[in-house]
Each structure stands twice: as structure tokens, then as C-alpha cells.
């Protein structure tokens, strides 16, 4: 197992800057997720780590060793892609032992290794079946087993769950998280699904346009996004954003006559400089409380729609012309058209610059 370090990594294809200078350190044994929309450069970064792409510029280190010029096989990485690329005509056992046989590992040693992964991935009953006849979840376990059987320095996963049904994805996601913690292998995982990223990552790296926008633990990114983009991208649903101006210690919500009186010194201090300039307030749906009766400092809003989600529901309101979502339990009975009082938790308010979308206070 290794620590992985990227130094000023760039990969350009002609004029397209797929990856445009990123620095990243993946600690030994940790699970790092590269997260971003299509085209953000996450897969290219992963392919550079694997050795499938030669970087235009920059260095890649496994521990202290510079591997930038090495071929994939010299790097000893394990990879799993969206489509598992098992050998369909081979049995599960043959699939798993293939990388070992290819490296001419002695049979005794192979037997030992197989025993180990079969136990970890619970494959005992599947070994004799052809890979092609297995259901997708089993195929995925086999693909993972094959990827780790060689004891790679790093495990690289590119959207390994995205071909699965919703329900199954959720189950496999948990399985994968448990397995990684059990074997403790350094893992880099690429996805556009923020729920997967939050659930699995020790560290999430949010990428956009070939650059890293923010790096941190799921909780750091969720509670303290450095930009409107991250605040919106993380969370189901994302953060609410409302354009505001600052007047007399209050946030005045644009398109309404609502005023939120501020008490937090850090907010007031920063917003002094934003007098009569518009900025954006961000608040997560669960940090707004709704009440049937008037509350001090509450906003009177009309329920537009209710989206049940099992144990909780999302209630949609309109603030100005934008949808404003609140996550709430089933205590209060609510119907569309009803007016209720919403109270924003001031300690959870984030403030962003309207022009560049970056956080001022988060």
C-alpha cells in the first residue's frame, strides 16, 4: 500500500485542458473520492494515476517513488471500471487468479491469496461459476476481488456502481465501504454521484474544469462549502441560495420584504463591507425550521409542493422567484397552498460573493 501524491498534474489534449494543474495527497489507507460533473477531469486524473495516460506536465509519486514515467504494470495498481471487464468465459476462480498467473506467482502462493480474498468478498459459493452468468452485484465483488488479489499499491475505481439499479447501488455502496475499511487499502474513487462520495470518502476532492475546487472531509465540505458550486453539488437536495443585501444588521431577501436579523458577530463584521451590495445567502434545507404559528424572526411562506422521502419530507416554498426547500419530519400536517412560518438557523448561514460564487463566510 502506498501514499499517492500528485504535483501540479496537467493533462492537455490539444486545446482541451482536461486536467489543468492539480496537487493532491492521498494518505496511506485512506479513501479519496474525486467528485464532479461530467468533463471536470476526474477520470483523466485517475487514468494518469493508473499510468493509462501520460501527463502533459507534473509528477506522480507512490510514497517517495516517482512513477510518472512508469507503465501501468510497473505501478502495481488495481482497477475496477463501470463495466467490470471480467473474462466472461472464465470461472470466477480463473478470473481472480488471472493476474497472479500472469505474473507467474507460484501455485502455493496463489492458493493462499485466493483463500484470503474469497473469505473477504464471500465468494466461496461462486468460484466455479462462469463470470458471465452472475448477477451484477456478484460480478462487481469478483471484479474487486481480482483487483485486490495482487495486493496493489493503490485501488482505483471509476464509477464502479453506476451500471447498477438504484436499490442495488445503495447496497453495494455499503459493501464497498465496509470492504475498504476491512482491508485498509489506499483507494481513489471517481464518481459524479455526491451521495456515493459523501458515504464512502474519508476525503472528497471536488473538481471542476480540470481544477480542484475544494478538498476536505464530507462533513467539512457539507457544512463549510467554499463556493456556491460545492454548496449546491453536495447534499440531497443541495443548499438553498437567496440573493440578499445587508441593511442595519439584517439580511434583506431580494424579491421579498423579508428581513433576517443577524446576531453573529462574524457575519456582521464581514457584511459591513457589503453595505448595499448584493450577495448570496446559503442555508441547508435541514437548517430551516417550520412552524404552524407565528415565530419571532420567521418568514411567512406558502407551501408549493411536498416531496415525501420515507422518514422525512422536503417542503418546497417560493422565495422571490426561486424554490426554497426545507427538510422536515412528519410532525406538522402540511398541504400545498398552506402558509407556514419558516425560521433560518443563523449559526448555519453561509455567505457567498454574488459575482464569483466563492464563500465569504462559510
Amino acid at each position, binding site marked *: 500500500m502506498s501514499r499517492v501524491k500528485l504535483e501540479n498534474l496537467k493533462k492537455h489534449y490539444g486545446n482541451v485542458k482536461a486536467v489543468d494543474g492539480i496537487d493532491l495527497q492521498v494518505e496511506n489507507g485512506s479513501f479519496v473520492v474525486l467528485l464532479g460533473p461530467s468533463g471536470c477531469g476526474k477520470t483523466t486524473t485517475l487514468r494518469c494515476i493508473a499510468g493509462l495516460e501520460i501527463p502533459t506536465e507534473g509528477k506522480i509519486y507512490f510514497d517517495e517513488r516517482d512513477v510518472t514515467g512508469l507503465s501501468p504494470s510497473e505501478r502495481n495498481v488495481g482497477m475496477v471500471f463501470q463495466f467490470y471487464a471480467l473474462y466472461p468465459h472464465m470461472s470466477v476462480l480463473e478470473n481472480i487468479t488471472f493476474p497472479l498467473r500472469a505474473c507467474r506467482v507460484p501455485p502455493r502462493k496463489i492458493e493462499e491469496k485466493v483463500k484470503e480474498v474469497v473469505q473477504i468478498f464471500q465468494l466461496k459459493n461462486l468460484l466455479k461459476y462462469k463470470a458471465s452468468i452472475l448477477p451484477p452485484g456478484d460480478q462487481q465483488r469478483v471484479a474487486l476481488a481480482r483487483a485486490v488479489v495482487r495486493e496493489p499499491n493503490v485501488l482505483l475505481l471509476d464509477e464502479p456502481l453506476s451500471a447498477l*439499479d438504484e436499490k442495488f447501488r445503495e447496497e453495494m455502496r455499503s459493501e464497498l465501504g465496509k470492504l475498504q475499511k476491512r482491508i485498509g487499502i489506499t483507494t481513489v474513487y471517481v464518481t459524479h454521484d455526491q451521495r456515493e462520495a459523501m458515504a464512502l470518502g474519508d476525503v472528497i476532492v471536488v473538481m471542476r474544469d480540470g481544477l480542484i475546487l475544494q478538498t476536505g472531509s464530507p462533513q467539512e465540505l457539507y457544512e463549510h462549502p467554499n463556493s456556491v458550486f460545492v454548496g449546491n453539488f453536495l447534499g440531497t437536495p443541495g443548499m438553498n441560495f437567496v440573493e440578499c443585501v445587508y441593511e442595519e444588521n439584517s439580511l434583506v431577501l431580494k424579491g421579498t420584504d423579508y428581513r433576517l436579523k443577524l446576531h453573529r458577530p462574524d457575519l456582521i463584521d464581514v457584511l459591513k463591507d457589503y453595505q448595499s451590495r448584493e450577495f448570496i445567502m446559503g442555508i441547508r434545507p435541514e437548517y430551516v425550521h417550520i412552524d404552524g404559528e407565528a415565530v419571532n424572526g420567521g418568514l411567512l411562506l406558502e407551501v408549493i409542493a411536498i416531496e415525501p422521502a420515507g422518514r422525512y419530507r422536503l417542503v418546497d416554498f417560493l422565495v422571490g422567484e426561486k424554490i426554497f426547500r426545507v427538510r422536515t419530519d412528519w410532525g406538522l400536517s402540511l398541504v400545498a397552498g398552506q402558509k407556514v412560518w419558516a425560521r433560518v438557523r443563523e449559526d448555519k448561514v453561509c455567505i457567498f460573493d454574488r459575482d464569483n460564487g466563492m464563500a465569504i463566510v462559510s
Partner: protein
Amino acid sequence: MLELRNISKVFGDIVAVDGLNLEVQDGEFFVILGPTGAGKTTTLRIVMGLEKPDAGEVYYDGQEITHVAPPLRNFAFMFESHNLYPVLNVYDNLAFPLRSPLFRVPEDEVRRRVESVAKELHITHLLKRKVSHLSGGEQQRVALGRALVRKPRIYILDEPISSLDYKLREELQTEFKRIHEEYGITILSATHDNISAMAMASRIGIMEHGRIIQVGSPREVYIDPANVSVARIIGAPSMNFLECNLGDDKLVIKDSHDFFFRVKLETVRLLEEKLRGGDRILVGIWPENVLVSGSTGEAWMKAVVENVEYHGAEKFVNLNLGGWPIKALLTDDFVPKHGSEVFVSLPEESLYFFYVDSGMRIYAN
């Protein structure tokens, strides 16, 4: 009202739809939720008239339409792959169904309707663009718009959003719901995505092996799942299940070296009454009802933390409870470390009891 009565459809050896009954009320957003292969798409195709059922009838407003040709039913269909015309621009794609010789809508009426729908869906700025130059989300909106211009009797959507990025899905899910409410239209949709189904539907029909196994509002099926399959399909995350043996005043988790939790005597009696020789009990509990603590209490069980999944407002903890994997949902600040020991309690009022063999509820709570 749309009604399917006892519909069956077989393809070779495969029974796609197996005696299915379904009613969709006017103005309802009805979602058929089920795994791949449950028969959802076949059902929708039968409603559209694109497949003939081997048995059973389709009714609309009391009139049998089983053999009526698709265009004459005036249902609008939106596929997963949305079948837009890539060479035409957005305007012409939207206008296409109205220009069909079947409807003979005058061109100024076409313009009026296209422009109003485009405005509604926020795609006015795209009207002159070729469809092939649009992003996935934009194409999805155009496909939706094309279904909306026609004012059909029912909108039928097959996996309308499941091929999209998650963020976009969330947006469109809200948009579908808003459009449904504003236009007061009737929608019949099918998906394997339980989260969007729960969010959008007025009523859900859960489908498995060619049959609808439960119908109800999202809240109803969540509170009162009829069987194990429903509980597995609807939750995010799924319900936890533990096979248990009945003791005098407790349930003992099977193969767990005597892990047990207490239940009231009346619960024990009720279970004893219902169980016949050989019946086995599967106890179900939603993850948000599993209590987890760093310290023990009366009849709490020891569990090992496998890992913690962070989900913003809440955390899911994967636990090993006497050899059984269970998931707990935490909303407070207690975040146990992987590998650590915690204590678990399963409150009796949150338990569901199922038969292991049939998967059916032993009794309704």
C-alpha cells in the same frame, strides 16, 4: 380513469406481466416502482397500445381500449431514451406531434402552444438550437415539452430521469412534480429509482415479478409495507431484517450466540397465535429507528461498527450485530469509529414482523 384488469403478457418462457390489476385516477401522479425485470416497461407499453396483452383488458373512462390503436388513445409516451429528432431544432421537435395529420392543428395554434410550453419549461432560449447540440438535461426538458404540447389524456413516462446525473435528476424530479400540480394532468410513470418515486408520486404501485404487490401513498407504504419485498424496494436505505426465534419475553437473533431483545408479553402471545409449526420470524426495523449509543442500557446489544457513511443531515452506520449486518441512522453528533464497539437497542414499537418463507407481514401493527 385508466384501468388495467387482470393483464398478462408472456414472451417465450418469460412471464413479463402476471395478472396485473391497476387503477390510475384522473389528475393522479401514479408511479410504478420496481426492480429491473419486474415488468414495468411491458405494462406501460400495454397501456400505450404498443403491446397486446395475452389476457386481460385496458379501460379508459369505462371504455375498453385494449385493441385501440396507439395514436387514437391520445396518450403521450416519454421513453428513457427520449427519441427526439436530432436533425430538427427544438421548436420543430416540440411542434412535431401537433403537426401530425391526425390532429391538424393550425400553424398559429402550434406556435402558441409551443411557445407557452417552452416558457413553462424555461427552454425558450433553446428553441432555435438543434437537439443534438443540447445537454442531457436540456434534451430531457424538450422531450417533456413535446409530451406536454399535445394535451393528451395521460402522460406515460418510462424511467423519465434515471439516465441523468444525480443533481439534474433532483431538479427534474421537482419540475415534474410542479408541472403535474400546475397543469393538473394525469401521469403514469415507471422507475427503479425509489427516491424519485417516493418524492414525485401521489400514489405508488410496487411491482415485482409481473405483479403489483402494494398500492398506496408514499407515506402509507413506508409506514405499513405489506411484505419484505416492499420494504426492501422503497426505503433509502432499506429496512433491516433479522431472523429471530421467539422466547418467553424476548426475541433471540438466530445464529447470534444468544443476542436478544425484549418484547412485551402481548406481542409474544400475538406472535404465538399466528405462527404455525415451522413458521419462522423475520423482524424488520427501519434504520432511523435503531438506537445506537456508546454506553449500554437494559437489554441493549453489543455491535461492532463496520463503517460510517456520511450523508449530510444524517449518518448511516453499518453495524455487525451478532453476525447480522444492520444499518442505523444517526442525526446527532455521535459518530462512532470503524472497528469500535457500540450498543444497540431495537425499540419494540418500531418493529415489523414478517414470515421468513412467504415474506408477508405476520400481523399489521
